[in-house]
């Protein structure tokens, strides 16, 4: 019990410190590293709840995939040599106060609520979860896979179509490329009327 409490405290501290780094630091790459740290802490919290499979999936997906994808997006998009303009102190204080008020209200709500005690001992096995995933919740499981395929194809399409657009406009004169693109649209609209 004491060891569990120690792990809980450590994981909670990791999650919160990582989140603070992810939000507070100015360098976007440091933000991403803080985010990964926070997800590792969150996985530790899941581990103390007996959800070992969930913890592994969280680390694989967030630290292994999402954080790396974010680094790629930063390298493709962020101008690293331009220093960010500091936010005005008034706006910083306003955001902090508003977030604090929302968090305090949520905490009061949670503290006041009466939660029923657990119906049985804490026993979570990856096998039970996996069995439920392919029996009771098979529809949600399949929909998630469809969603992931659509998201993957959509991501490729979105990232590519703009590239093609730019290549076309760079190839010909920008003004000449814009005018023929607008004309068929107007003509089609008038023909429909």
């Amino acid at each position, binding site marked *: 019990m004491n060891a569990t409490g120690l792990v*809980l405290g450590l994981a*909670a501290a990791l*999650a919160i410190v990582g*989140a603070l780094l*992810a*939000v507070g630091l100015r360098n*976007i790459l440091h*933000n*991403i590293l803080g985010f990964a740290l*926070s*997800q590792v802490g*969150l996985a530790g*919290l*899941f581990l103390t*709840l007996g*959800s070992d499979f*969930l913890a592994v*999936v*969280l680390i694989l997906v*967030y630290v292994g995939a*999402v954080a790396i*994808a*974010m680094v*790629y997006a930063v390298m*493709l*998009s*962020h101008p690293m040599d331009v220093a960010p303009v500091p*936010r005005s102190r008034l706006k*910083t204080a306003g*955001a*902090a106060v*508003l*977030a*604090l008020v*929302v*968090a305090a209200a*949520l905490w009061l709500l*949670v503290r006041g609520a009466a*939660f*029923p*005690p*657990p119906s049985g001992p*804490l026993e*979570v096995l990856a096998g039970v*979860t996996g069995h*439920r*995933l392919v029996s009771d919740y098979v529809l*949600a499981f399949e929909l998630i896979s469809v*969603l*992931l395929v659509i*998201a*993957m194809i*959509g*991501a*490729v399409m*979105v*990232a590519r*179509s*703009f*590239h093609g657009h730019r290549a076309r406009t760079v190839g010909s004169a920008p003004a000449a490329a814009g005018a023929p693109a607008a004309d068929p649209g107007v003509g089609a609209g008038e023909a429909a009327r």
Partner: protein
Amino acid sequence: MTTLHAYLFVAVVLFGIGLCGLMLRRSLIAMLISLELMLGAASLNVVALTSLSGASSSVGQVVALILIGVAAAEAAIALSLFVAIQRRAHSIDVEDLSELKG
């Protein structure tokens, strides 16, 4: 303070930090990071409540797994959109993206 409340407190703190970051930061990627922190707080809530209070805990795990899947799809779409926006507008600072501002 019970063990359940410790988990819920961590979730509330994570949610507050994410909310603060979402309002404070102007880079789209930093805003996405804050959003993911808030989603993590929500899934921690679901898992903690189903594990330590009442219901069967594998339901919470299934919900959290689906949440992670949806968040991953959302991150993939969002990051590709950021790259496309950067190509068009040469900036992913939200204050530069004001074409529709009246």
